């Protein structure tokens, strides 16, 4: 399972490096569709859901939708993100609770490069 995730993530990275130039500056969202898919693949416990939400995101990425900031949302058990280790650990994603529906917004830690 993890291999599939890594492989897909790798493809996305390749796409972002080269192919994205063919349709340069197309995406109407932040994060871009490819980045969104990457975050989903890396955080969503269900691979199927990760793929599904990424596909739906691409379908939404057209002129009929307004675009804007749209973070991936995932359902994870709170225990999965509780801080267990004391000491320094690099934060890769922030999980921000969505409006009381048990889901979490996934935000990649690109803003501050520090430790938690």
């Amino acid at each position, binding site marked *: 399972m993890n291999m599939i995730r890594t492989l897909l993530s790798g493809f996305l990275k*390749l796409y972002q490096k*080269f*192919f994205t*130039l*063919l*349709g*340069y*500056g*197309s*995406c*109407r*969202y*932040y994060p*871009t*569709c490819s980045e969104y898919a990457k975050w989903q693949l890396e955080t969503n416990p269900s691979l199927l859901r990760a793929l599904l939400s990424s596909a739906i995101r*691409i*379908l*939404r*990425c*057209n*002129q*009929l*939708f*307004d*675009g*804007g*900031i749209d973070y991936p949302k995932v359902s994870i058990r709170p225990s999965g993100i509780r801080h267990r280790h004391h000491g320094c650990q690099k934060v890769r994603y922030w999980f921000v609770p969505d409006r009381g529906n048990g889901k979490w917004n996934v935000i990649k830690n*690109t*803003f501050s490069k520090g430790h938690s």
Partner: protein
Amino acid sequence: MSTQMRVVIATVLSLIVFIGYDYLFMPKIAPQAADNNKTAMSAPQTAAQTETAPPSVAPAVSQEPQKPKAAPVRGDTFDRVISTVETTNMTMEFDALGRISQVYLKDRQYRDEAGEELKLFNTPKIPKPLEVRFSDPRLNDLAFKTPYSVSLSSVTVDGEPKTITFTQDLEGFVVEKVVTIYPDHHYDFVVRLSEPKPFYVSPGYRPDLRIDAYTVHGAMVEEADGTLTIIEDGDAKGTESFRKARIAVAFDRYYATAFYDFESGIDVVVNKDAEENPVLFVSGESGRTMHGYIGPKEHKILMAIHPELTKIIEFGWFTFIAAPMFKVLLWLHTYIPNWGWTIVALTFLIRLILYPLTYKGMVSMHRLKELAPKIKEIQAKYKGDPQKMNAHMMELYKKHKANPLGGCLPMLLQIPVFFAIYRVLLNAIELKGAEWILWIDDLSVMDPYYVLPILMGASMWAHQMVTPSNFTDPMQEKIFKWLPVVFTFFFVTFPAGLVLYWLTNNIFSIAQQLLINRMLEKNKKAE
């Protein structure tokens, strides 16, 4: 990594995506010249053997089916023509074993440069269409040593179908093959045996007129549930059987020989020959009428015989999108006689379908200029942090409903459309030798003077010129600027029709962008 290096990698990667599949997964067959040599080499041999007694040694072991029946002594011993059938569009020859040994196509579009009629079979491969093989080895041996007698040695089919009866007397066991030929490339046949014996009939080895590495050739079976199983040349794994199949077809790029039955189905066995190419056999039933087709995979002809028969026109793994695309092209072609302009019209049609999206995008652009000061503010504020800058920009666009970007979906939709047109251009016989204007006299092959690819590159460059872009990564910007050049080279070997499609598409994009730019300009002046 240098810029050039990246450009090279980008080219290679795009190649993999666009046509890599075909190159990687399709067997590379030697061009026809090699096949012709083979013919020349083996032809005298065959002739020599025909002169003497039927050889009982040197059997063509490799080409015999393994399971359903024992080996015949030789397949090509009785190759003298005993009956010739003339229809309005083909000449069919039957050999002394009651098999179709050659088919000449009469229609003008199927002639070669010198105006000679094309022959479907150019190598002495067996089985030939309508070849009967018995499971009983002794009987089979005898059947391949005994010539058939024929009811008519020359028939002309014009309008009404004509029937020929082939009879073979195998020491009292009588084989009767009744073939009814229609003027539209299809035929019916019945095999009657004086006493029941298990036997097989073959629709024949595939035609070998157009064999290349770009398109699929081999055999295909449409199973009872409509599943299409393709066994490409070089990929036949041994004996495979299909119960109650609907179609069994052996084909090259443009031509096919098939048996079909859409009501009661046919039991098909696929064997392999020495080159691991598939060889088709259909289980015979004494007295049962079966249907066959031999000729070009032309939509109009197949449609007239039976709409289901059009399934033998196959576009590779992209059929599901290429087939509808082909139908649209055919429909447009009924109004536009020139295939080149038909492709231009198709491009226009696709743009038209996407117009509601484009229009919405254009309207939202109007509001963009009001945001100019705010955009500048964001750009200044987050100068060192492109992530944050992008996030704020997108949110600003959303707030004011003025997103200038097209979106990923319209961009990604282009890919299947592009693929589909590529496959249609390669596989559809209707587009073989299709002209456009001036120097383009065959849209299914590359532009011999490189004019279209160069124009395509130029149009791509022009599109970049009129489209505003802001790169945060200077390296990306450099690669972006080089893309038109990369694409020109990349498109050089593509069928001219595909380059024409992309060129037209670019021109429409430029026109659209200019329109948007003008609207923005007007708004600025109005201020």
